């Protein structure tokens, strides 16, 4: 058998046989599906929590707006809901407001109420109302409270202005749902939020896998050095072949795992998501159900088509190129070290651009067309992560993708060439880690 194949076979089989591989392969799709489904679930969760109505409305407006709000909040509750889940209204004079607030706060602290809503003259003037409660950080709950307060204050103000109550209610009851679609150079397609989620998922996945498998190459090199098995191996096979076999063997594991992850993730999303819709539609009052269905429609339209074969192909291509680039650098770093501790230190300069890519994800996500975002997409060391992300966010031409891929491929070839030289000499060098000058000498020696 060809020696390269023998090395690849060992690297591949020894990894695939481990328990950790089986475990990560099984957990990957769950994580992937989780990352995809979670935001969809959040979006569908517009109704807010069941306790959102369990508030004390402290009304210092001297009008009935507090009662209206309480009624509107109680609307979404089932008829059998206990008194503890229903809103209570405390009407006070402006002078007694601080005392009433203190009492209401004490109720929240004592878990008798979820929160308190304070209405005063500023509320009626259309400026603000105040809310304090345990769920003040819940986006959906606050959104719901704000909707109700705004609607009821608007109704009250319209009535004050002389509009008949029976005509005001149907108008203010309108609930508008903003359906978002992103427009790119290719025209409209997919929801904007969907694109961002796919971009983040792909970028995080690429970052994690390139780092994970690059470091496996590092560890594999260091293992052969520290156990001194390298000496026997290089008497049978040339170091270049050994390094190539290592990079390819570990890479094959990475590729297999990614294919299993994507495949499993797609299957999970396809299987779990419809199930999840039915579940959402089955509960809640009629209005809430309609909302959930609406949100679920939006969910369905962005999750499924966006993780397309094209995206997967691009992600895999950039994984392969990025992995080749980084694994060569990791192999060289490993060959310079005599212990795992040393290797962790030597790996840091190699990891910096990778970590940089992760740090700048946010920037690229917020403004993919900005100068720095474009620069990161073109720079070979960050491109493997940022470019696929950019592709999911904005429209890119095939030429741009091809040129970037070519740039990364060129950098990978250079890294493999340099890495092989350091590896060849470093593999049998023990003692202190080389300085830059010594590294240069190694390069010459390996020539």
């Amino acid at each position: 058998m060809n020696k390269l194949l023998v090395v690849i076979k060992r690297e591949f089989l020894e990894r695939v046989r481990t328990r950790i591989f089986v475990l990560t392969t099984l957990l990957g799709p769950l994580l992937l599906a989780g990352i995809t489904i979670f935001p969809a679930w959040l979006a569908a969760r517009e109704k807010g929590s069941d306790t959102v109505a369990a508030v004390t409305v402290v009304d210092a407006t001297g009008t009935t707006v507090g009662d209206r709000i309480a009624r509107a909040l109680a609307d979404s509750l089932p008829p059998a809901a206990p008194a503890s889940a229903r809103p209570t209204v405390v009407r006070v004079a402006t002078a007694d407001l601080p005392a009433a607030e203190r009492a209401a706060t004490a109720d929240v602290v004592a878990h008798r109420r979820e929160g308190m809503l304070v209405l005063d003259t500023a509320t009626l003037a259309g400026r603000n109302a105040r809310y304090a409660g345990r769920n003040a950080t819940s986006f959906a709950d606050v959104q719901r409270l704000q909707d109700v307060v705004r609607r009821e204050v608007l109704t009250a103000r319209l009535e004050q202005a002389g509009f008949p109550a029976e005509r005001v209610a149907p108008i203010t009851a309108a609930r508008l749902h903003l359906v978002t679609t992103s427009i790119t150079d290719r025209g409209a397609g997919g929801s904007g939020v969907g694109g961002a989620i796919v971009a983040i998922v792909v970028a995080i996945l690429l970052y994690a896998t390139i780092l994970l498998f690059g470091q496996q190459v590092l560890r594999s090199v260091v293992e052969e050095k520290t156990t001194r098995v390298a000496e026997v191996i290089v008497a049978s096979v040339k170091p270049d072949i050994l390094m190539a076999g290592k990079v390819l063997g570990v890479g094959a594991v990475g590729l297999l795992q990614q294919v299993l992850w994507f495949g499993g993730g797609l299957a999970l999303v396809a299987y779990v998501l419809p199930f999840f819709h039915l579940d959402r539609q089955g509960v809640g009052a009629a209005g809430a159900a309609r909302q959930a269905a609406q949100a679920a429609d939006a969910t369905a339209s962005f999750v499924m088509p966006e993780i397309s074969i094209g995206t997967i192909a691009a992600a895999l291509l950039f994984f392969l190129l990025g992995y080749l680039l980084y694994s060569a650098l990791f192999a060289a770093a490993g060959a310079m070290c005599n212990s795992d501790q040393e290797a962790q230190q030597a790996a840091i300069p190699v990891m910096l651009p990778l970590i940089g890519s992760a740090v700048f994800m946010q920037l690229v996500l917020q403004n993919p067309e900005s100068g720095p975002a474009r620069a990161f997409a073109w720079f070979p060391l960050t491109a493997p992560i940022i470019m696929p992300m950019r592709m999911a966010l904005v429209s890119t031409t095939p030429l741009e993708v091809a040129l970037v891929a070519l740039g990364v491929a060129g950098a990978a070839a250079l890294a493999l060439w340099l890495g092989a030289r350091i590896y060849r000499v470093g593999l049998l060098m023990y003692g202190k880690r080389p300085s830059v000058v010594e590294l240069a000498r190694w390069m010459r020696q390996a020539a």
Partner: protein
Amino acid sequence: MTELAIDVRHVVKRYADHTAVRDLSLQVPRGTVYGLLGPNGAGKTTTIRMLLDVIRPDAGSIALFGRSNREGGVLDRVGYLPEERGLYKKMQVRRVLRFLAELKGVPGAEADRRIDEWLERLSLKTPEKDWGEQKVDELSRGMQQKVQFIGTLLHDPDLVILDEPFSGLDPVNAQALKDTVVELHRRGRTVIFSTHLMDNAERLCDAVCIISRGEKVLDGGVQDVKRAHGGRQIALGLDRLAMNGAGPAVDAVLADRALVSRADDQNRFLELELAPGADPQVLLHRLVGAGAAITRFELVQPSLHQIFLETVGATGVEAGMSGQG
């Protein structure tokens, strides 16, 4: 087809700050057990690594079985046991061995058959327990050493290169290694090993090469080397009680600087060094004539250890070197 298993010609290896090997030439005939002797740092490991094309010489040529050692397939006929030994710790013993065999071009099924044979032979596989199924780091150090031997010999190499093979071996494994070397020799294989333990070299080697500071000091068959350095030492045993007053006459013969350049009383016998040009037969004749009662008169061959010390010189010898194996 050449008769030389190893043919090294004028090899030089320089490093940045020193020359590890200078103008070294070695010829090892097929089927010999060859010792590469020298103090630590003499260039033994560098020489061995060059034989295996792990490092390249700056000048000179290396041929194994008449072909350059850089040619494809040549090194597949070589088995190598490095001084610093180690295996993949987390790998199953059997898989490590199959990997090593496959790297030398042995097909998987054939490798499996040989692995079983070897494991049984070195009692790593018994009816009760098959250590081949264990991971390497679950084996004792001695067992790991055995696995490493197997890895060296699994592809039935024509040339076996052992770098300091006896260092770190327990007595049982050291014996097993000696037996293996003898067995390889019997089957016509060539074995070259480096050592600074002269005892082992003296017992096992057909021929030796002594190197010091990267240079060859002497080489040749063990008997030739001894003959070249020997024949001048005589162990003389005298029964003084049986000599009846002949003592002074005998001592006068021993004090003759034309015959004996040095006499060293070792209590049970005298160690004599013949004067240059002196004939041992003349000495024996003179002693008998003087009335000596001789219990022993033996031309002693010097040990490799003595030759080593003589040629390399005490300065080339580092602490820890001795003739004790």
